[in-house]
């Protein structure tokens, strides 16, 4: 019988991270675009030195409660949103500011447009290009701006996740470009990029069979206990024995167009993870739809 596993940011097993925001149509020059933020909202709190004992106790239980800077008579500590109630238990504290620890992605879509190189054009369908890149400053150790093998593979599986969803056969001799730039990364960047890409494609007016939603589920273990959880963050992904299963789900058909996994799971666990993934993708799908609706409210509001 499995005991309890505590998530580093204080979430329960099936919770997505506390902050997921999408905005459609954020770039002027692209034909369609979306900006997505997906992560944990952090409060940076000034904690007097005499309260530090409580802090270290909490940090041990929830590693995302952590000290980032030490001053003479106080420390600056981070509190993830699900654990903000802890701040009330401290005396003489001051919230300095709030920020997101998570993924931030800009996606631009161009097309259908003239293909480059031209000889790749197909008389039967549009060519889809998908390019996933990360800013050098998005990750803990600076990433070289040169394309990596990781980015190449993610670009490929992402393209394949979208190809059958788009009515590419309607646009022979053309090309559709999807560019995803991750400016801030904290686990689950490919699903964040794909979730935004889906909204950007709709924003560009490309006809689609469904609005694909992407999410990752997984398994984390501590002290011999394991749990199936939704939406792993970086701290969880780095845990010993963690399993990560990113997926793209077509919400209407409940089918998967992207599925990858690293780690070790049982057959039963896999089934549980796939079910959880479908449920969570539907939650993501609602946020995607709301983003698109908001854009058109904004546009029609301007007309009046």
């Amino acid at each position, binding site marked *: 019988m499995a005991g309890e596993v505590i998530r580093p940011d204080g979430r329960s097993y099936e919770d997505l991270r506390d902050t997921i925001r999408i905005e459609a149509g954020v770039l002027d*020059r692209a034909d369609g675009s979306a900006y997505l933020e997906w992560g944990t909202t952090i409060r940076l709190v000034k904690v007097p030195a005499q309260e530090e004992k409580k802090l270290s106790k909490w940090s041990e239980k929830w590693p995302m409660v952590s000290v*980032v800077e030490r001053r003479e008579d106080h420390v600056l500590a981070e509190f993830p949103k699900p654990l903000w109630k802890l701040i009330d238990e401290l005396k003489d504290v001051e919230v300095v500011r709030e920020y997101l620890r*998570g993924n931030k992605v*800009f996606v*631009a879509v161009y097309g259908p447009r003239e293909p480059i190189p031209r000889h790749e054009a197909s008389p039967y369908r549009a060519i889809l290009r998908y*390019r996933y890149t990360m800013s050098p*400053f998005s990750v803990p150790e600076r990433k070289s701006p040169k394309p990596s093998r990781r980015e190449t593979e993610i670009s490929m599986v992402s393209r394949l996740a979208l190809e059958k969803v788009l009515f590419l056969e309607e646009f022979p001799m053309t090309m559709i470009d999807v*560019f995803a730039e991750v400016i801030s990364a904290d686990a689950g960047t490919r699903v964040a990029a794909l979730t935004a890409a889906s909204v950007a494609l709709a924003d560009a007016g490309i006809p689609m069979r469904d609005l694909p939603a992407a999410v990752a589920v997984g398994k984390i273990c501590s002290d011999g206990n394991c749990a199936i959880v939704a939406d792993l963050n970086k701290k969880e992904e780095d845990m010993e024995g963690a399993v990560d299963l990113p997926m793209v789900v077509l919400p209407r058909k409940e089918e998967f167009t992207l599925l990858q996994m690293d780690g070790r799971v049982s057959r039963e666990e896999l089934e549980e993870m796939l079910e959880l993934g479908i449920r969570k993708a539907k939650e993501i799908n609602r946020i995607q739809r709301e983003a698109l609706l908001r854009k058109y409210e904004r546009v029609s509001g301007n007309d009046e």
Partner: protein
Amino acid sequence: MNEFVWEFTSDKVRKLALRGFRIDRRALLDYRPASIETGVVYNADGSALVNLGGTKVVAGVKFELGAPYPDRPDEGALLVDAEILPHSSPSAEPGPPDEEAIELARVIDRSIRESNALDMKEFVIREGELVYLLFLDMRVLDDNGNLIDAASLASAAALLDAKVPRVEDDQIVRHEYERKLKLNEIPIYTTFVKIGKLIMVDPRIEEEHAFDARMSIATVDDGSIVAMQKGGAGSFSKGELSFMADEAIKKGREMRKLVKEAVGHGKD
């Protein structure tokens, strides 16, 4: 937009310029509205997202450790890079930085280096062996014209936002900081374009396709000029250059204030 459309809008921009007007009815020496948001990237040691009239640039500062240059054993290193992402316009192709992106990075690099904005001697951990390397990376997300000024605002804001990470056993401890990054100067570029006889500040994309020549002047608070870059195939007179230098000093002060306000907001 294709070549034909640019020919058409350029023609309109040039015709309006003959009568002393700009295509967006802006005064000749007015900037478009600018917004600056700092601390936008958790893993960066300093970061900023700038929107200058629709031109969007994100800049990030990251510290790494490495060996100093052999001829400068008592200094850290500054490495500046820029990429004009394919997001930024239909003509920006994915791939390694082209000449425009490399120019952008070098132009920004010069303004920081030549103004002595950073005290590179503060970045030494063990002389001749181990120093901080400061990486400043810029990514252009949306190009509505005047990348140089937008990148200059973004990099200044990212540097002002930056903190120096703590080092333990010759390794950087991520997300733990030693001190704020000290900036001696805040160099700011002001870019002008000349269309016919008219000189205007902060060109939008339609004006960039129509200009004869471009001039970017980086200034610091005491009114010194610390870097310049002429662009485009046309020419400027000495009188025009003096005029632009005066205006750049004034505009630089205004924009510097804007950056400082953005960074000062709610920070410890």
